[in-house]
């Protein structure tokens, strides 16, 4: 047993896990208000990262300008996307809308490839110190930034859904669009809101990952990578998304630990979370915090 | 299993949801051939009672005997095989199937072909079986007078028609005991009359024992052999319709009659 290594891995897992949590939250947001699983989530990250990268390299904008501008861009992007593509789909079968997000993902993936090329591009240096030491582990500063922002966002979301008028409207829309409409809720507005927020928050994650690894089309794989986190926490739970993210982050690292120390199977890091996911779902079919479907006749 | 024993026996059943006591120590039995009604205010636990009988809920306490056999722990599909069929208060049709297919699903447990023999349709007798059951289903369709919509997709039908399709599907199960949850809700007088006639026919001619939940007192009084009243999860009365009607509590808490005694039980609820 190497406790030092174990500790470092757990810390690493927690930190990467927050990022999973943030992206998972974006999923949950869209799901909660529209019941759509957004397969273009990864592309949202990618677009956010590229836009921020572009602002910061072409105009040499500092991060505190580049980042808010990116947010603004993503806001407009989210609304536009909703108006142009998703609005006509209101009232259509959810599965068709999910397929549309797959189409979007193909579209944006190649659009980004065309505009920005396919090579990974380094992000301009943002923080004086690139990494700081936490419990013996060097951690990139960008992660710490995301940690703080995502905590704020998480708390915000929680209250938003629980208490705000719009939050209620989003939940009602997710329950049944016709019912929501009959209550005077503009399904279009609700959708626009949730896509815009989700796009903005994804951009945060995109920028952070971009800072750490460079920006490249591969970033979009993040979208699929966080599925286990989303499900583990429960599809409709903001808190669940964070817990799921952290759990998956730690799990991956623990798997790596056991693999490297004893098992030597290889690839446990990627696959183990999926085994655990299935086991947890067998015990708790709605994830850790997801609300049960109402089974009543 | 003897004919003398009641078809259904409910012993001491209690059901709790979180803090809500939906049912408390319910006891009753239904004899073969009876047309038994359950009435009571909204939220009294009538539907929950049916759910316990059909297997959707398992009671926290108590036993349910069907044909002398303890079915308390059986899955709904197993109870169906034993001969319990039902309809639902909030429609539960297969919305994307045609009316015909909906009813054919009711024959599921009576059929033998499976995915292998079904795939080889012509070679394995699956076709013959399908056609046999189709014939039986058409009889039901004729009986319930829904032949004009047999090819319609169930989800697009109006509420009243869907209720009727639900009844057809339950009848297709060939149950010994059929549970009807507010079969006449959402129907106008004429349609209620039709429905009442179907229920009576099922009971008298098709030989099914019926348990029916219904809020229309006129119907309940006219056609049921025996009535049980639930309120707040408790049984407050059980007996012949006229007896139950005379119960003070029923009149005030359920029917909302100001003065007891003189009202004609047959008066249309109005």
């Amino acid at each position, binding site marked *: 047993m190497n406790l030092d290594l174990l500790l470092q891995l757990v810390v690493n897992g927690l930190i990467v896990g927050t990022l999973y949590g943030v992206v998972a939250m974006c999923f949950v947001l869209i*799901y909660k208000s529209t019941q759509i*699983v957004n397969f273009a989530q990864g592309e949202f990250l990618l677009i956010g990262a590229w836009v921020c990268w572009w602002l910061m390299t072409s105009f040499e904008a500092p991060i505190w300008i580049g980042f808010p501008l990116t947010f603004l861009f993503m806001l407009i992007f989210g609304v536009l996307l909703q108006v142009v*593509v998703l609005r006509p*789909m209101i009232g*259509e*079968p959810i*599965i*068709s*809308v*999910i*397929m549309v997000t797959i*189409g*979007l993902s*193909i*579209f*944006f*993936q*190649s659009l980004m*490839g*065309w505009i920005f090329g396919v090579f990974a591009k380094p992000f301009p240096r943002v923080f004086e110190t690139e990494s700081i030491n936490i419990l013996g582990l060097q951690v990139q500063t960008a992660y710490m930034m995301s940690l703080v922002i995502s905590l704020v966002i998480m708390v915000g979301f929680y209250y938003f859904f629980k208490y705000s008028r719009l939050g209620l409207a989003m939940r009602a829309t997710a329950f049944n669009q016709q019912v929501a409409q009959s209550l005077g809720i503009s399904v279009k507005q609700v959708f626009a809101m949730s896509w815009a927020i989700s796009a903005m928050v994804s951009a945060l994650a995109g920028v952070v990952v971009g800072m750490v690894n460079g920006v490249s089309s591969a970033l979009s794989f993040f979208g699929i990578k966080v*599925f*286990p986190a989303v*499900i583990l926490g429960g*599809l409709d739970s903001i808190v669940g998304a964070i817990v799921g993210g952290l759990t998956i982050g730690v799990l991956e690292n623990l798997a790596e630990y056991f693999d490297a120390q004893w098992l030597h199977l290889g690839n446990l890091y990627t*696959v183990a979370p999926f085994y655990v*996911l*299935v086991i947890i*779902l*067998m015990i708790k*079919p709605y994830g850790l915090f*997801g609300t049960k*479907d109402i089974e009543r*006749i | 299993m003897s004919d003398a024993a009641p078809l259904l026996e409910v012993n001491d059943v209690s059901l709790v949801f979180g803090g809500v006591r939906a049912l408390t120590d319910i006891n009753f039995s239904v004899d073969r051939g009876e047309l038994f009604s359950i009435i009571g205010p909204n939220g009294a636990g009538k539907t929950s009672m049916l759910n316990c009988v059909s*297997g959707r809920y398992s009671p926290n306490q108590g036993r349910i005997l069907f044909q002398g056999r303890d079915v308390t722990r059986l*899955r709904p*599909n197993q109870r*169906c*095989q034993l001969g319990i069929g*039902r309809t639902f208060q909030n429609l539960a049709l*297969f919305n*994307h199937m045609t009316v015909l297919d909906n009813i*054919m*699903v009711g024959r*599921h*447990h009576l*059929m033998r072909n*499976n*995915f292998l023999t*079904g795939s080889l349709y012509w070679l394995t007798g*699956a*076709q013959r*079986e*399908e*056609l046999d059951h*189709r014939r039986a289903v*058409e009889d039901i369709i004729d009986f319930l007078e829904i032949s004009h*919509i047999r*090819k319609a997709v169930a989800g697009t039908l*109006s509420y009243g028609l869907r209720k009727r399709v639900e009844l057809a599907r339950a009848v297709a*199960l060939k149950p010994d005991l059929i549970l009807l949850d507010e079969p006449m809700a959402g129907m106008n007088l004429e349609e209620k009359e039709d429905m009442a006639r179907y229920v009576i026919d099922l009971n008298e001619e098709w030989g099914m024992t019926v348990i029916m939940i219904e809020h229309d007192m006129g119907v309940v009084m006219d056609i049921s052999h025996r009535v049980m009243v639930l309120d707040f999860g408790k049984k407050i009365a059980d007996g012949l319709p006229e007896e139950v009607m005379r119960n003070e509590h029923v009149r005030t808490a359920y029917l909302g009659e100001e003065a007891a005694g003189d009202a004609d039980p047959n008066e249309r609820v109005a």
Partner: protein
Amino acid sequence: MAGHATMRCGEFRTSYRADTTIFPTPMSRNFALGGVVLLVLAPLVLNAYYLNLLIQIGYYGIAALGLNILVGFTGQISLGHAAFFGFGAFASAWINNSFGIPVILSIPLAGVLTTAVGMIVGVPAGRIKGLYLAIATLASQFILEDFFARAEWFTGGSSGSLANSISLFGYSMSSDQSYFYVVLFFVVVMFLFGANLLRTRDGRAFVAVRDHYLSAEIMGINLTKYRILSFGISSFYAGIGGALYGHYLGFVSAEGFTILLSIQFLGMVIIGGLGSVMGALLGTTFMVLLPEVMTSLVGSVGDMLPGLSQGVAYIKQMAIGLAIILFLIFEPDGLAHRWKMVKAYWKLYPFSY
């Protein structure tokens, strides 16, 4: 009564048997028969390219039908279909290579083996529902992919495994022409099986489970059994499709069976129309032809605008994404639905409504 509105003027049947055929009208049956006859003649007129596309539509179409049984009929979304498809490909190659069982038998055997794997993967479906289940199947996608890389005895590891071509009575069916007939045979058989299955007891049970599982259970349907069974049957189709794919390519490597292909399968059934046998084939055709059509369309645009030559590849990909989006905006219920509308129109012609 309002029933008039739903009564069709163009339907006349005199027996239940006539009412339970796969093809609702004699015309549609003749249509289908004619289609098969045309396909039988196809190799005589079509060149290898078109045959190749038809073969692709064939093996993907079989797998897509399987997925449609799972997603469209039983209502369980699967993101792991590509892994089953791959498993079938590996299994058939393995059975043939290791045991010397002829390919024509190894293909159905691979289907059976894949069924077993599919049922195991389907076990959680007894408890997990909806999107949670979808992600659980995503897990099986990754777990199986990992297995492919690990199980060298089965998959040939990094160098992949060779899949021999079919030989019947000493005649090798390795040319596109002869392989086309093999695929056509399987397509016809599998689609007939599928259509039969879905109009009989178990098929109805699948749909019942999808539409309202609570009442389905009360109607006597064993939910767990049918949920798992549908995984099994769907995997059987995937396995057959995958095996045909493997023997056509002659080489099976884990690289081809990623989540991307799973998503593509999902695209096929959604675009084709969930819950429609015909839809599986239509959707597959759409997804297979789309890149080809886009290549030639965008290629000719690229010729006109030479500056775009590298961009052409991206434009093509974007066009594929866009085509999917536009298609669903205008036909969210899938091709099969459009097909039905066209049929309904003709049936009632010249009385609309």
